[in-house]
Structures are given as structure tokens and as C-alpha cells.
């Protein structure tokens, strides 16, 4: 195990240029950043979103005519998993005030705040409570908390610039002004953010930030936040029930068109259940497992964009779904670590990106889309990528992590990046001494369902929180703003929904009439009936095995 002898040979070139690069860094000399016009040019030429065939125009639904990622359009232009006529609406299996769909960070934060308004809550989640992209977020959480050098004003500018000024400014204002409150809330719940002895929090730069405002807990910030929120939800077990392995597959409405619950599918017993609820908070997260443009992904197993299609059928418009985020630094070696996220904090801490010659080709703190496009350019156009062993035609570039120990002192890499350090150690690679071979990997759904700053939407009783929503990040999210997004908008949606259920006295007759209408629209357009959605789980089955499953029946990817 460890690097092949060919790679060890190539690493010598990186080692040769390293002392000078470290010296420059210490002197404050950075590789020149691209201008806004150069950024645009780089994106248009090299970012996967701009490749021919990446997008297509929607032919049905509330955002008809909008161009979005093909793979998401496939799930929109598909029929429901359920035949509306097969549902028995007389038998309701669960009744609650607030139904939260999704057991990640946004959903759990929402559940906690809804409960604090006096609501009874059910969290329905596809996998286990907490098995979500929140758990996997590593680098940190942005918030302007240091008023001697930073403020929501600068955070706002950074968010807008990172999103190419297309963001919904109302959502951005809400996020940046709520950010310090979100940090304070998590601190109060007992999240162990890295701190000095006097309690002051450590903060670092992220790509695209003008001030060091990335708060973190080692390199497992998301895990620390997720397990704390989950633990707190478990302490409120009297009011917050959790249904695991029970993804929602369709929403329910009443005759006034208000969202009134959902149909859940028990993945283990293959039964469907009806949940009647006065409010539904959609918090299903992203869609990396749709493998946009066939990219590998850092996302968790359940990230199939289910909430997008359920919300779209309900009549919620979508935004920014043309923009998929490719994280610049996904591992490409060793093979078993492939697609794995290497946190941006590594670059935030000073590690350069270098090509096969050990030369820098991009400033390491460009926004993610620019950074990714630059890596793709270096490999595909410039031809200075490092060949990935055993995979002809594949290339990566070096992420020079050993610089960090040289800049900040021996032991920094191991202390600041414990999870990645252990992981690579298992593969025989000491990342405090050797660089990592990386390539962009599908990471985040920049867009999603349209929602207002308080989490409400155009449909009464229906609320949105977290990655399933779109607008706040524009076409490109900055590092550290997703943990922030899920905490801020999870809390707000939970609070709004919790208050709303106190004003809603009754739920009318349940139906899925919106799905019927959607099916009619598909029929008129003559599309989509060959597919079903939501996907629920990706298909990584073995086609050879499937050929011999003579009596099995698949609906979409599910047996």
C-alpha cells in the first residue's frame, strides 16, 4: 500500500519546489487570483455545467422552460412511484403537528425549533437519523463573529461574490445576520468548536472569504454538529419521534391545496404509510447520487434529490438547478478512497495545488467552481496533470498538505485534520509528509426549491430548509456556508412551521390531486412515463446478478 514507485518519483518534483513556495507564503506572496472577467472565462471554458448536454429545458411543471441539470430533469419528468388510485386515504397511520422530511442537520434543527414552539414533531428519514451530508461536512461553518475585523456586511459581500451576484439578496441577508446566532446556539447545545483557553473560537479562511470566519471542530465540524443536534432531539423523545428507513415518496394535500402530510415508504417491510400533519418541512438535502455529468461524488448514499421532485410536483418553483458544485479536491488515489472529500480547510491552512512539475497553476483560495475549472483545465488543456495509476486517461493534481506543517509547525496536519490523517495512514500514506492526489468531485446542489427567508413557500403548510432549497448561494456556494445554511434555515423553518401549526385548526380531506394533475401534464407533453421518481436509493447493483434475478421486479432502482 501507499503510493506507487512512479508517484513517489513524481512527488520529488513537488518536494523540490516546496521550500520556495513555503517561503513565499510566509512572506504573504500569493499566486495571483483571477479577475472577475477571467473567472467567467474559465468557467465557460472548463466547468462541467457548461459542457454540451449538461443541461436541458424542463417541459412540465412550475418552472417549465428553465434549463437544469439533465439528471435532475429526469427525476422531474417522471411519474410518481405511487399510483394515486392505489392509495387508501381512509387509513392514516401517523398524525402530528409538524412532519420533517429528512434527518440531517437542517431537518433536525427544524425539529428542535418546531418542538420549542410547542409542536409535536415526526422526523421521517431514509437512512438512520443523522446519516446525511451534514455528517460529512468537514471544514467549518462561516459566521462573522469577530467584530474587530469582520461583520455581516463583509460576509454578505463574500457570499454574493462567490455566487456571481445572482444570489437572492434577502436570503443572503438573513443567513449572514443569523449566522452568529446559529454559532451561539450550537455552542449552547455543547458543540465543541475549537477554542483558545479563554473561549475565543478559532477561525480560518475559506476560499472566497475576505476575513477568517470559518469556525470548526477539527476536520469533522459537520459530524460534531450533527451528532449534537441528534443527541438533543433524542433528549426530546417525548415530542420528537423519528421514523428511520422511511423515506417520503409523495406529499399529501387537502382540498384547499395546503400541504397536509406525506406518504412514507418503509424500505424494510416495503409498506407505505400515511402521515397527516399540519405542516411539512422539506429537508431532504442534495442530489449528488444522481451523478451529474457522470462525476464521482462526495455525497452520502441517500442524496438522490427526492425532496426536489416532491416539491416540484406540489407546485414549488426551482432555482439555480443548472449549477452543480464540484468540490475541487476529491481523492483519486488510492482507488478505495476515490471521490472522498478532502476538506477545503487544507487549502485554507495554506496548502498549494501543484501540477506534475510541482508548479502552482491557480491560487488555492479561489471559489470552488473557479478552482475546479482550473484543475480540469490543467489536466485536460494544459496537459500537466499527474496520471492516476492503474486508470489510463485519468489525471489528478497534487494538494501539497506537507506545507501546512512547515508553515504552522510539526504536528499541525495530524492535529487539525485527524480524520483524514488516520484515513490516509491506513492506506500507508502520511499526509503530513506526502501530498494528496486530487481531482474535482460532485459535491453540492447549489440550487433547489424556492423559499422565503422564514422557510415558507408559495404553498401553505409547506416549508423548506437546507440544501433542498435554492437561492441563497446563487450559482456557487462558498465553503462553510452549507453548515451555516442548514443551521440558520433549519431553525427558521422550524420556528415558522411551529408557529404556523398553532394557527391551523383543521386538515381537510387528504389527497394527492397535485400528483394527478402533474401526471396529466406529463401525458399532455408526452414525456416521462418510462421513469419513476423519487429515486430513493441509487443503483449500485451488479448487472450480472440482476440478469439472474429471474423473478424480481424493479420499480426504478428499487427491488
Amino acid at each position, binding site marked *: 500500500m501507499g503510493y506507487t514507485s512512479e508517484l513517489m518519483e513524481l512527488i520529488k518534483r513537488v518536494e523540490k519546489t516546496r521550500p520556495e513556495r513555503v517561503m513565499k507564503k510566509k512572506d504573504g506572496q500569493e499566486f495571483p487570483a483571477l479577475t472577475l472577467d477571467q473567472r467567467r472565462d474559465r468557467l465557460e471554458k472548463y466547468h462541467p455545467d457548461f459542457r454540451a448536454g449538461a443541461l436541458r429545458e424542463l417541459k412540465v411543471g412550475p418552472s417549465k422552460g428553465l434549463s437544469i441539470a439533465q439528471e435532475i430533469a429526469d427525476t422531474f419528468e417522471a411519474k410518481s412511484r405511487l399510483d394515486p388510485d392505489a392509495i387508501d386515504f381512509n387509513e392514516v397511520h401517523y398524525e402530528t403537528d409538524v412532519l420533517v422530511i429528512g434527518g440531517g442537520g437542517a431537518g433536525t434543527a427544524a425539529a428542535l425549533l418546531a418542538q420549542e414552539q410547542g409542536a409535536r414533531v415526526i422526523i421521517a428519514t431514509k*437512512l438512520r437519523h443523522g446519516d446525511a451530508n451534514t455528517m460529512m461536512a468537514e471544514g467549518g461553518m462561516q459566521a462573522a463573529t469577530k467584530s474587530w*475585523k469582520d461583520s455581516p456586511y463583509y460576509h454578505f459581500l463574500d457570499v454574493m461574490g462567490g455566487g456571481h451576484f445572482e444570489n437572492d439578496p434577502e436570503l443572503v441577508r438573513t443567513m449572514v445576520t443569523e449566522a452568529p446566532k446559529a454559532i451561539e446556539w450550537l455552542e449552547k447545545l455543547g458543540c465543541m468548536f475549537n477554542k483558545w483557553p479563554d473561549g475565543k473560537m478559532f477561525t480560518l479562511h475559506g476560499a472566497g472569504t475576505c476575513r477568517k470566519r470559518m469556525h470548526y471542530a477539527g476536520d469533522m465540524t459537520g459530524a460534531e454538529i450533527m451528532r449534537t443536534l441528534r443527541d438533543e432531539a433524542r433528549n426530546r423523545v417525548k415530542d420528537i419521534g423519528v421514523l428511520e428507513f422511511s423515506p417520503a415518496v409523495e406529499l399529501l394535500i387537502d382540498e384547499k391545496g395546503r400541504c397536509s402530510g406525506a406518504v412514507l415508504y418503509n424500505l424494510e417491510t416495503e409498506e407505505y404509510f400515511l402521515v397527516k400533519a399540519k405542516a411539512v418541512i422539506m429537508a431532504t438535502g442534495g442530489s449528488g447520487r444522481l451523478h451529474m455529468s457522470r462525476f464521482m461524488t462526495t455525497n452520502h448514499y441517500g442524496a438522490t434529490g427526492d425532496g426536489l421532485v416532491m416539491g416540484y410536483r406540489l407546485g414549488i418553483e426551482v432555482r439555480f438547478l443548472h449549477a452543480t458544485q464540484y468540490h475541487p479536491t476529491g481523492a483519486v488515489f488510492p482507488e478505495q478512497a476515490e471521490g472522498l472529500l478532502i476538506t477545503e480547510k487544507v487549502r485554507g491552512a495554506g496548502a498549494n495545488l501543484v501540477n506534475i512539475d510541482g508548479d502552482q497553476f491557480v491560487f488555492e483560495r479561489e471559489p470552488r467552481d473557479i478552482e475546479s475549472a482550473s484543475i480540469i483545465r490543467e489536466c485536460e488543456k494544459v496537459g500537466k496533470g499527474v496520471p492516476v495509476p492503474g486508470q489510463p486517461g485519468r489525471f489528478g493534481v497534487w494538494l501539497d498538505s506537507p506545507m501546512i506543517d512547515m508553515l504552522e509547525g510539526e504536528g499541525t496536519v495530524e492535529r487539525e485534520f485527524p480524520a483524514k490523517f488516520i484515513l490516509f495512514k491506513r492506506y500507508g500514506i502520511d499526509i503530513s509528509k506526502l501530498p494528496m492526489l486530487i481531482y474535482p468531485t460532485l459535491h453540492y446542489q447549489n440550487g433547489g426549491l424556492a423559499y422565503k427567508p422564514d422557510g415558507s413557500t408559495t404553498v401553505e403548510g409547506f416549508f423548506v430548509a437546507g440544501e433542498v432549497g435554492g437561492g441563497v448561494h446563487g450559482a456557487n456556494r462558498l465553503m462553510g456556508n452549507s453548515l451555516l445554511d442548514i443551521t440558520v434555515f433549519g431553525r427558521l423553518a422550524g420556528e415558522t412551521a411551529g408557529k404556523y401549526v398553532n394557527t391551523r385548526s383543521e386538515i381537510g380531506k387528504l389527497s394527492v390531486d397535485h400528483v394527478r394533475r402533474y401526471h396529466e401534464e406529463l401525458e399532455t407533453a408526452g414525456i416521462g412515463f418510462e421513469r419513476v421518481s423519487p429515486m430513493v436509493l441509487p443503483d449500485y447493483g451488479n448487472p450480472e446478478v440482476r440478469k439472474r434475478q429471474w423473478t424480481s421486479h424493479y420499480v426504478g432502482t428499487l427491488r
Partner: protein
Amino acid sequence: MSAMVQEAVQQHSSPSEAAARTDLVPIFIMGKRYMVPSTLTIQKAFEYAGYQLIRGCGCRGGICGACATVYRTPGSAKINVGLACQTVVQPNMYLTMVPFFPANRAVYDIEELKPDAQTLLKYYPELAKCMGCNTCTKSCPMDIPVMEYISAAIRGDVEKAAEISMSCVMCGICASRCPAELGQYNIAIMCRRITGRHIWPKAQHVAEMVEKINSGRYDKPLEQLMKADLETLRKLYVERQMEPHTTPEDWTPDDKSFI
């Protein structure tokens, strides 16, 4: 085309390839033999063998703890542990995932907890039954010295227990192997939350900023940005002063009118 990588493609082979493959090794999933490519992780080997995973699969990145796996190899009595998504198969390994194992979990109010041994023993009296066998440490797929944090907890050194257990993924293997029937990982998160809430000092700068925001200090500057046209916004963005990478913590910007 170097970007075109997909797990699904890499895991599988066409019938002709499968016949020609020389890199397959036997593994025993719950005692049953399957031939799988030698470079796969246990998780992908399950899928290659024909399983569609429902339990035992979460982040696929070594952090959620859904895919704890125990295995042994021929000629050794040792029980090994690993996360299925992170552990590469070994020829002739006998394995099973342990996607769930029951463990005691106390319900508590974080505000009322105190950072001492009495508190921990009140909620987890079984702590006192730890016999120091060290099986938990030997069974941790994250290489955490579990028994050390349990010892720290028994001593009442809550902060130490929190720090040692920081990289716990709560997979539950420690609890499955513990002869004293402790749910170590639940005790660990209680220690971490007590540390974060009650031992480590509160960040004053965060509270101060919240107060400043609530006082309306940034309402006007933000309103200005909201109203600014694209050109102005771009200009402000490009010209914003960057905090240098290597400056000390107390660095301040030249323009203080918006902080």
C-alpha cells in the same frame, strides 16, 4: 474524459470480463462465499455480490458509523473491526456487518448536567462495572483508546473523556463487545456536550456580535448592499480588504466603518 468516473461503472464487469478477471478473491459474507475484485472495499464487495444495501450504508465516507463490520481471517482467532466503506477486502475473510446494536442511552437536560463523576454515574451507573478489559479499545474501528476515555469518565475528568472520544463515529462496536454492557459512545457524547456547554468558556466575541446585530448596527450597511446595483456591488467586492493568511488574530482592517 478523465472526469468520467462513476462508482457504478468501476465496480462491475461484463460477463466476458468477469470470466477473464484474474483479480477476484473469495470472501465469506455471513459465512457464504462470494468472488469479488480484490481492490474493492467491503461495502462495494457487498454490492458486487448482489446486495442492494438498505442498512449498513450511509455516508460511504467513513464518518457516519452506519457500516461497522467485524471479520476474521483464516489461521487467526482474532476478531477484527472496520468500517465497510473504508476497509478493503482480504482473501478468505469471514465478515458480517453490525448495522445496529442496542445500547443504553440516558435522556437528560444538558442545562442541568455538571462536569463530574457523580453526574455521569447517575445517568450511566453501569460505568462502575467497567472491568478494564480493554476490549472496547481493541474493537474501535477509529482507533480510539475507548477504555482510556471510560477511565477518564469514571475519574470525573469529563473534558479528557471528551477530547479522547472526539473522532467517535458512534458505530456501536465497542458496546457490542463490552462484557460490562456499557454503551460507551453514548457516554462519550454526553461528556463532549458537557465539555462544550459547561467546561469550555463561552466565546464572548460571539455573544457580543449577536448583541451588535440585535442592536441594528448592521441594518443600514446591509440595506445599502441590498440596494446597490451590480456594478457597485462588484466594485465593493473586488476592493474589499483581504485579511492576510499569516497575520495574528488581532489584525484589524483599515476601513472600520462597516465592522
